[in-house]
């Protein structure tokens, strides 16, 4: 009787285990998406990131996780992790390690922007109405911050106010 070579046995077992695991991997349906981006430190976003208006800040690194009800897909809560940095002199490099903050709150979907009454807008509510902010849903994978008057926030040559989906 020919013995089965142990290497082939191990390979077959590995393949079987991989296939078995892949069939059980499911997308977390409680997460609508994770959006990230580097933005400027505009005045209306500072309170959301717990950055004072007087603080030296030139860049904010966002990681925004939007949660939803897994059954109804209605918005529930968000988690925002950010790192703020300023430009150090004379190197003109961004400060390291930056200041990290984490905030949470609820979010809702509202309708309408300045240019489009049918636009889908996500509103983040951190518990204080005066510091809630709105993001225009450009597409399934892009969000853009809106100013108080509903206009798109204007970035610069260095950074914009667009967040991109980095994960589901």
């Amino acid at each position, binding site marked *: 009787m020919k013995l089965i070579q142990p290497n082939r046995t191990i390979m077959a077992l590995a393949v079987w285990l991989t296939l078995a695991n892949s069939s059980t991997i499911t997308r977390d349906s409680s997460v609508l998406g994770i959006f990230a981006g580097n933005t400027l430190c505009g005045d209306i976003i500072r309170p959301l990131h717990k950055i004072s208006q007087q603080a030296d800040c030139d860049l904010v690194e966002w990681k925004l996780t939007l949660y939803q009800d897994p059954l109804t897909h209605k918005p529930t809560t968000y988690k925002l992790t950010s790192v703020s940095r300023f430009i150090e002199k004379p190197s003109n490099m961004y400060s390291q390690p930056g200041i990290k903050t984490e905030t949470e709150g609820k979010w809702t979907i509202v309708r309408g922007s300045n240019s489009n009454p049918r636009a889908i807008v996500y509103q983040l509510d951190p518990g204080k109405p005066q510091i809630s902010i709105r993001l225009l849903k450009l*597409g399934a994978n892009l969000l853009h911050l809106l100013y108080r008057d509903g206009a798109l926030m204007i970035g610069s040559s260095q950074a*914009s106010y667009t967040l991109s989906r980095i994960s589901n």
Partner: protein
Amino acid sequence: MKHIISSFIISFCFFLTEAYAQRTVSPNLPSRSFSTTPLASGPSVYGVFEGKSPCQSIARQMNIEVGPECIKLKWGLTLYHDSITHKPTHYKLAGTFFRKQDREGKWHILYGTRTDPEAIVFQLDLGEPNGFLFLLKGDDNVLFILDKNKDFLVGDAQFSYTLNRARN
């Protein structure tokens, strides 16, 4: 004496009103450009837009060969229009891909994308082999670089495909 006091009170009221107006004026304005040369201005200039974007996807789209070390691109786009009719005329495109010489050509306004029939899209004729560059007009101050199908390009955690109006 009464006249002097009345005049003072009225003047003080105007001062308070002006001060309040200044605080509530939206600072969501175009940023100063870091360009070492003055930006184009005047009635024949529709606008100057700047930004940084990821590199690889747009390089492929424009048939520009880049190495894996290309992580980001700088963009400086000047759009000109007829000073009377405001119809698009020509553009100048500067940035990482055009360090030796700005790319120049004609641009046009198109209407509609797959998902938004009312979208305003700027088409820049880059010539061969680069093809066309499509930009969605978010509003007067923000443009979004699109792919060849006029769909949004999705950025990453650092950069997006957003260009912002700049000023001197």
